[in-house]
């Protein structure tokens, strides 16, 4: 089954399309419109209460690119007369803005469907939803696939399910060496967001509907905390909790109560899928964002042009907003969509190929300024925020080994499975990857001993990005528990988020294979 566009948006969609000629008031102006309606319901239960909250963001962004500047006018006054008046005032605002006399003019015109489809790298999941004989006045809708309808349960049923999960945690606690009393805070939270968006320009009229489902369980004992986070794009199949997940959460919580503090230093460590996702994201994800390159703020743009090597043969990083079946699970990765917020169709892109930097990701104006192809990375926090080049799902290409083979190769060291943020330094090429805690490995086997940071908190991997990428020794397959060849095409991705320039939060997938790193700085 696929998600369909909310029927209440059909009339608005037709009305918005009539504004394009108003926006293209001057020759050479490129007018476009982005509309979004994101309705989310989050339900939670903890030891004291249950909650249901509804959130909706809904608004339209009118856009004019005049060859120099991208102008936007964002509003939530969506009746036809208000929109028409606003479009006219907006045009006047753009006309009244003077450009520097010697600024460079780079005009842009809307790509036709023929242009779009001739690019040749559009995935089948997207192509299959585009009608044959498509024209500029054809309406195209992309809907996310789902197996179990995420709207099928009532709030009462969902809350009952969340309470059951909490009870399971409490009942299972003794199996992990904890008493029920040791669990000082327990919460389970489930959310569903229905995200409708529409993109319009003179050549295109398309919409998409995505179901974003997530479930989080947090356990605390005093100040120690473990969490489980599941989710993806699709239906309730994305948030199936296994009993072993809960037992692991509890065992880790007990382990944290008896953990040691890590002595800062250089270590051999295996990064699990979420941590490798964070590493890829911070290493040559942010540095490969086109607007950061256009602002002169990324070393990657210089290194791409010189072809200098910045990592070894294992260092291949991809960005892909078109993952609709991750890890063979049958549902979409958290950072996926069919088209970005500037109407560019999603496709896979190699950012770093065995240590050599390829062209960066772009959005409309960064592609124009850098003179390189557009990619589907124009995203914004919500309709009230500006658009930037943003990552979607960023990950390392898979290797050939199983996790057990990686553990044997590690021999003595740590495995890191639980993220605690990260930060980029695109110009200085420093990197920071946060780890909640480490699990000790001796002779290729887990000892059960956990380690926190030197001050009892998170651990940070830091270093010079090329050094870190050169320290990768091995990578696992996507299906790391099986020696058989991978059947999954794309890796599993965690439910993640990303901030840019210290603000501007967006969803991002975070995953990949396991990787073994040698002699990296942990502190």
């Amino acid at each position, binding site marked *: 089954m696929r998600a369909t566009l909310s029927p209440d948006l059909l*009339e*608005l969609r037709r009305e918005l399309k009539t504004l394009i000629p108003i926006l293209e008031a001057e020759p050479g102006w490129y007018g476009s419109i982005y509309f979004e309606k994101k309705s989310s319901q989050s339900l939670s239960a*903890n*030891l*004291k209460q249950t*909650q*249901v*909250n*509804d*959130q909706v963001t809904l*608004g339209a962004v009118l856009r004019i690119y005049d060859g*120099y*500047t*991208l102008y*936007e006018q*964002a509003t*939530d006054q969506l*009746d*036809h*007369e*208000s929109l028409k008046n606003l479009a006219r005032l907006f045009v006047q605002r753009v006309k009244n803005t003077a450009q*520097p006399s*010697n600024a*460079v003019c780079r005009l842009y015109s809307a790509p036709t469907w023929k242009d779009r489809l001739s690019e040749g790298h559009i995935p089948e999941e997207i192509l299959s939803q585009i009608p044959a004989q498509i024209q500029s006045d054809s309406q195209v809708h992309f809907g996310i696939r789902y197996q179990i309808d995420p709207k099928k349960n009532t*709030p*009462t049923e969902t809350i009952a399910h969340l309470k059951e999960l909490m009870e399971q945690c409490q009942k299972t606690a003794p199996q992990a060496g904890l008493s029920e009393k040791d669990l*000082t805070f327990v919460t389970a939270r489930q959310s569903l967001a229905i995200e409708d968006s529409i993109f319009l320009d003179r050549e295109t009229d398309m919409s998409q509907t995505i179901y974003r489902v997530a479930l989080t369980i947090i356990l*605390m004992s*005093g*100040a*120690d*905390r473990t969490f489980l986070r599941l989710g993806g794009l699709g239906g309730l199949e994305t948030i199936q909790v296994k009993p072993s997940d809960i037992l692991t959460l509890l065992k880790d919580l007990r382990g944290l109560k008896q953990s040691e503090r890590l002595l*800062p230093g250089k270590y051999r460590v295996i990064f699990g899928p979420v941590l490798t996702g964070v590493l890829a994201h911070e290493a040559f994800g942010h540095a490969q964002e086109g607007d950061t390159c256009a*602002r*002169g*703020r990324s070393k990657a743009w210089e290194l791409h042009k010189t072809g200098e090597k910045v990592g070894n043969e294992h260092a291949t990083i991809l960005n892909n907003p078109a993952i609709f079946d991750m890890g063979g699970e049958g549902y979409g990765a958290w950072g996926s969509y069919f088209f970005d917020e500037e109407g560019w169709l999603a496709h896979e892109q190699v950012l770093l190929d065995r240590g050599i930097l390829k062209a960066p990701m772009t959005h409309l*104006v960064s592609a124009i*300024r850098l003179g390189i192809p557009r990619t589907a990375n124009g995203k914004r*926090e*919500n309709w009230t925020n*500006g658009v930037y080049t943003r990552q979607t799902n960023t990950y390392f290409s898979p290797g050939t080994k199983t996790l057990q083979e990686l553990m044997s190769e590690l021999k003595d060291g740590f495995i890191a499975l639980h993220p*605690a943020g990260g*930060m980029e*330094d695109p*110009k*200085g090429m*420093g990197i*920071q990857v946060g780890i909640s805690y480490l699990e000790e490995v001796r002779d290729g086997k887990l000892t059960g001993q956990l380690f926190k*940071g030197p*001050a*009892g*908190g*998170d*651990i940070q991997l*830091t270093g010079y990005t090329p050094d870190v990428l050169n320290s990768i020794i091995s990578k696992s397959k996507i299906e790391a528990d099986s020696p058989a060849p991978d059947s999954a095409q794309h890796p599993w991705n965690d439910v993640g988020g990303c901030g840019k*320039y*210290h603000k501007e*939060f967006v969803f991002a997938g975070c995953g990949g294979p396991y990787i073994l790193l040698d002699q990296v*700085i*942990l502190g």
Partner: protein
Amino acid sequence: MGTRLNWNLTQLKTELSKRKEVKGWVISQEHIHRRERYFMQETRILVTDQDREVHAQNIDLHLFVRLPEKEGRQGETSKKLFLSLPLAEQIDSAIQAALQTDHQAWELPSEVPTHLPELRTTDPRIAEDIEKVMAEFTDRISMAVTKPRGTTFNSAELFISVHNKEIHLSNGLNHRSSQSRIYNEAAYSYLKKDPYGNPRSDEYLSTRWAVNMEDLNIEKLFDETSDRAEHSLDTIKPKAGKYAVIVDSEVLATLFNTQITQISAKNSYHGLPFIQPGDEFVPNAVGDLLTITLDPSLDHGADTTPISGYGIRQSPLKVIEKNRVVVSPTDQRYAQYLNLMPSTTCGTVVVEPGTLSYEELTREAPQVIEILQFSGLFMEPHNGTFSSEIRLAKLYDKEKGTVTYLKGGSLSGSFKENFQRVRFSNKKVKRAHFSTHGGSESSGEGYYGPEYALLADVSIVG
């Protein structure tokens, strides 16, 4: 959608009061007008990459409903309402959602505060003419960019907004307020050749929030950013060890606004880490003993307001005195849950300064590291630990009389441990921070306190 409907807040309140399930409500309406410009340099001229204007209106309903079959309990929900959608359907939906929930019952205040003070929350020049202020700041940025420097200007962002808000409570309280906000960031890079003739470059990015124009010194921000960019290539990695470390007001704002949640009544109720009145805020402290006040009346503070969201009068409240917790900040809900008096919960975190000058702080230990910028400071609110990569720092060596710039490596700290022997500088500064995570406009976090603090025995690895 597509047709304007004509309901208003009066109709909303009338409709809510007719519903038998409804026990009470808090309605919050906010109109935001924001202007944004994104600047960059192209062929040596300042160009505007993006130019945006936003008008947005949010109406949020927090609804309380009766649960007749559950004594001492009530239902609650939060829902965003839209003028473009039928009112009755939205109310029905909110009631249905609230009926599914289960909270310990509590009541809004029975008395409505009167004669609330007029506080300075908005820069009148921004409220009056946002375009004029945008033009003025744009000119100042243009001047700052054209100033001859050894560095290269990369980019800047300038956001200016006005937030007009009103809240309506079912106990009869109506209150209107406004707030102005300014955000400015600047990035400069520096390029030079290494001894082998290879070009090397690095950059520095500064960000700053303010509520009024005087609290944002654009020229100083650009000068400081350029200066730090220029030093970013003359750096070495720190040697691993434990150091005396100076952090600035931006870092202190994050640390204090996070750590202070551990004295809130909310933490006590939910079984989260809680420091109760009478206990030491920093165990076994022997340095400058902390005195902290929540001040909701500070001129142009990030969280300046005469009343809380539940209608409790807000006034300055000393919450920690000489390192002892005096009182738990408690809103109306947790006051009733825990049988406490409701108190101030909003306001800028005001920290009493110390006695030492900045220069004296740099000489307090044989080697002192001053953090100029962290890459990304992460603090865990429940255990008070924090860590980050070091983006740029200075190492003051008293014996050698040298100052060396540092970059790289990471710092791991703990509020409980590293503030035991803290020394504060004697000059106070004001800081503000706003975030919009999750799509809704948040209230701000404010700090007014020492510009610098010297922490002891901080673990650093190079």
